[in-house]
């Protein structure tokens, strides 16, 4: 067994000790995971973004326009001193502003119009009634009515929005089921690693 498998196995068991309760072994593994993850992120951000997009084109290809994002990025460090902290609003303004500008058409197209288009389909196709299309139409309209808070949910509107809650419950139940099963498959993967690769109990 190689040293990598031994370390991975021991650390996996250390994390699993949390099932008993919070303990120093788990806290050690947790602290190590946080540190290593941050270190990994730092390296990846440095090599894939700062080196590839900023420093290499700026220093090797002489793309002087990149001085602008470099200065904006460095201004973020002004947050560490109370006197200069307000300077960090400049790069944040650029990010927030450009992000908001991009979000409007993208959200309108992808999240709103495309979803509306997919909702409206022919109820009768090839002479047969499609019940599923009706379910989708009723589901979207009633769920949207549930989220409409400008009017009191009472009378006919209240009953319509209540139907929406049933659709929401089906959605939550379905999402819950899939989430549990994805976590379970990850857990089975970890158990398989422990029993097969680390402890050699199963083959």
């Amino acid at each position, binding site marked *: 067994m190689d040293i990598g498998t031994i370390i991975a196995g021991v650390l996996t068991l250390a994390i699993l000790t949390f099932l008993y309760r919070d303990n120093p072994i788990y806290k*050690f593994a947790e602290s190590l995971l946080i*540190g290593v993850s941050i270190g990994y992120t730092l390296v990846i951000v440095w090599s894939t973004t700062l080196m590839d997009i900023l420093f290499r084109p700026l220093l090797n290809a002489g793309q002087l326009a990149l001085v602008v994002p470099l200065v*904006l990025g460095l201004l973020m460090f002004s947050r560490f001193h109370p006197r200069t902290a307000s300077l960090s609003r400049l790069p944040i303004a650029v990010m927030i502003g450009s992000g908001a500008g991009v979000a409007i058409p993208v959200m309108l197209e992808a999240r709103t119009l495309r*979803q509306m288009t997919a909702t409206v389909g022919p109820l009768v196709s090839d002479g047969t009634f499609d019940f599923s299309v009706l379910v989708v139409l009723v*589901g979207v309209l009633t769920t949207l009515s549930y989220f409409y808070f400008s009017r009191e949910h009472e009378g006919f509107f209240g009953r319509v929005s209540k139907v929406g809650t049933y659709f929401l419950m089906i959605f*939550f139940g379905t999402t*819950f089921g899939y989430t549990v099963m994805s976590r379970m498959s990850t857990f089975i993967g970890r158990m398989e690693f422990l029993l097969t690769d680390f402890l050699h109990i199963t083959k």
Partner: protein
Amino acid sequence: MDRKVALAICFVFGVVMFIQYFSGSSLARQVNQSILEYWQIVFAFTLVVGIVGVVRTNVQRINKRDDVFFRIVTLAGIIIMPVVALIWGIKADTPFMWMFENIQAPMQATVFALLAFFVASASFRGFRARSVQATVLLVSASIILLSRSALGGILADEIPQFAEWMRNYPSMSARRAILIGIGLGSITTSLRVILGIERTWLGGRR
């Protein structure tokens, strides 16, 4: 930095990025590409600022003798990964990737798997058929859990089929309504940010 200057910059960048979406000219595409690149670079710097913040906080706590050992372990992880990457690089079969595959990835996957137990115990306590809505939630979750295990197919062939129909139609319709809501909410918030009505991102006094 005056708040008005920041608001003006936010407005200008917001309007430019909004307008360029509707333009087919090469200049607009170039402006869009450059700003998105700037965005990525500034975002990378914000991550570095966050990491510096974590290091500062841990060092301050160590000086106050608070959880010294665990904080040293965290700092060691933060320092060792870049050092290893600097010496041997980050390609496959380097110590950097070895540490990722044998330390970070197994622990991350195990933490993720641990959630299965907490979700299961929380649902065991929380799932009670107290109302019609709660019953619908319970039944739909049970059908999905059955359909994704061997038991569902053994009990009845229709269970996996019905679960698939439930996912594609009633569940999808609620998801679609939520997405439409998210879309409209995002558009409204973006407009409020660009026009300077929403100012919480500036921090401090309003």
